[in-house]
């Protein structure tokens, strides 16, 4: 399918779901009860309409006509890196407040460097992880007086 048509379908879907959710939002107790809902409903409807328009415009060119269209490529190797990094980010979120900034960052940054920079460069990865974690802790906690867990 043409990439723009996919964007259109995504926009239409998001617009419809958002508009329905907006319609069911609680109403205001004071003043016009619909006041907090008008703007979101308008946005949902507008998004769905824009998505539909994009689909129609793309349909005119033929939804499956890919002549002269550059499709976005998703390679398995790069997706592995991206999802690996995203998974580590979620792990970081789970650990951050439980075990504290320094241990969680050592684990997170270390794992991220091993994933991206490779295990062969383990010495460099370890030095960068230690240096950056303690450096960041010093800058944020000591210099900027920002509390980290």
């Amino acid at each position, binding site marked *: 399918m043409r990439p723009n048509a996919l964007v259109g379908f995504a926009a239409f879907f998001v617009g419809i779901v958002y508009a329905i959710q907006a319609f069911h939002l609680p109403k205001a107790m004071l003043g016009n009860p619909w006041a*907090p809902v008008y703007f*979101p409903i308008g946005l949902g409807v507008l998004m769905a309409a824009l998505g539909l328009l994009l689909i129609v415009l793309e349909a005119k060119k033929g939804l499956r006509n890919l002549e002269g269209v550059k499709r976005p490529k998703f390679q398995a190797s790069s997706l592995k890196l991206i999802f690996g990094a995203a998974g580590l980010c979620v792990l970081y979120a789970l650990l951050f407040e439980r075990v504290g900034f320094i241990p969680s960052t050592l684990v997170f940054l270390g794992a991220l460097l091993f994933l991206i920079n490779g295990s062969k460069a383990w010495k460099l990865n370890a030095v960068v992880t230690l240096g950056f974690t303690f450096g960041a802790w010093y800058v944020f906690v000591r210099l900027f*007086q920002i509390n980290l867990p």
Partner: protein
Amino acid sequence: MDVFNHLMQGFAVALTPLNLVWLIGGSILGTILGMLPGLGPSTGIALLLPMTFGMRPDTALIAMCAIYYGAMFGGSRSSILLNVPGDGAAVASCFDGYPMARNGQAEAALAISAIASFIGGLIATIAFVFVALPVARFALRFGPPEYFCLMVFALAATAAISKEALLKGVIALVLGLMFTTVGLDFQSGVPRFTFGSQELQMGIDFVVVIIGIYGISEVFVNLEHIAQQVVRPVQTKFGRIWISMAQWKRSIWPILRQTPVGFFVGVLPGAGATIAALMAYNNEKQISKHPEEFGKGAIEGLAAPEAANNSCSVGAMIPMMTLGVPGSGTTAVMLGALLILGLQPGPLLFEQHPDVAWGVIASMFLGNIACAFINIPLAGLLVRVLAVPPKLLYPLVVVLAFLGVYTINFSLMDFYLLVGLGFVGYLMKKFKVPTAPLILASVVGASMESSFRQSLMLSDGSLGIFFRSGISNTLLVAAVLSLAWPFISDWRARKKRENSVDIPIE
């Protein structure tokens, strides 16, 4: 005289030791961030935002401006030495900057880009001094309907960059506005789209949106290429970084001609420094007596876009500071930072906080001088940063991004949002959906809705209030025109093609 007195007060603020330290520190940081491909001024300022939380508003704004100008100066370093622009605005600097470096003129290329940036920034700052106060005074006439229309215009102009991307730009814009509706509605106290989460009641902070959409998604995009990435050798040893008199004579007029172009493009919402630089490059190529030299290392081809993109970055500060409406992704981040610091940019900034407003303007003069010093004598030292392999750089960017968002609300919800928004940004980039309208919308969305509802309260629910004043009507017409412009220019080009007749040569 009034302006001169204000400016002198501004210099007194900007020259305090603390502000001066941050001005120089920000210029260095900005130059380094600008150099690194993928980390432009908006991402850089967003990532370094937590640093400003403990600062006074004038210091914070001066530091952010310095990062901004530093990034505009630094962006061209990697264009010249690697043929990879540090940020979008430096793309035109690749065209002749890189060939100059290949021809053994890297020193002259580095010097002229900094000199052109300096002159462009300086002239634009002088223009800023004279334009800021009248615009701010005019903006005092704006009520909620006018503000709403102004934001509609700013968003429409940002979304309507090209005919092909127009619909996708408006979709991105609406998505950005949707993000701003999450959380407690501040006028009625109604929770919206919080799904029972207490952490979402405060809404999605636009800094999280910016870092997710710009920063994390950029890391994801770069992870795609990282395995195949060939490390390019970077020249780190230079002779004297300066230009000859002949090169100066060739460059000065292009600089002076294209500085006003960049400034006006900057003042207009949406267009941005990339367009300013490309326009300047094309203008100079068209009027040059030797257009064939462009693309092969013509010094004018480097000087013109550099002057234009720096004057554009100064021009872009005008709507942000005088109207409180950002015209670009970077100024949107700066506006957001000021709101966090409890300062409302706009016409009242010049009345209520003249020390901040004029201190920042004065700092633009000093910042330009600081950036010129950093980018000419220290260029050889700073460009060593370009030798840092991306495989090491991007994991550090991710950690910095997480730390940045955590220090805003101290909420883990922002971590999850960051990852989710990173994916949204990644997909937007893959499907060529512009991200700038989303960023702008996520910053102005809340005040846009607030102006919309205040206007409706004033008019008892009648939408007619948006068509009652001349200012509103002008702004709405401008918004419609900017949305229609890609179609009009396309139609004109087609018409021109149809009217041109091929005359067969006998």
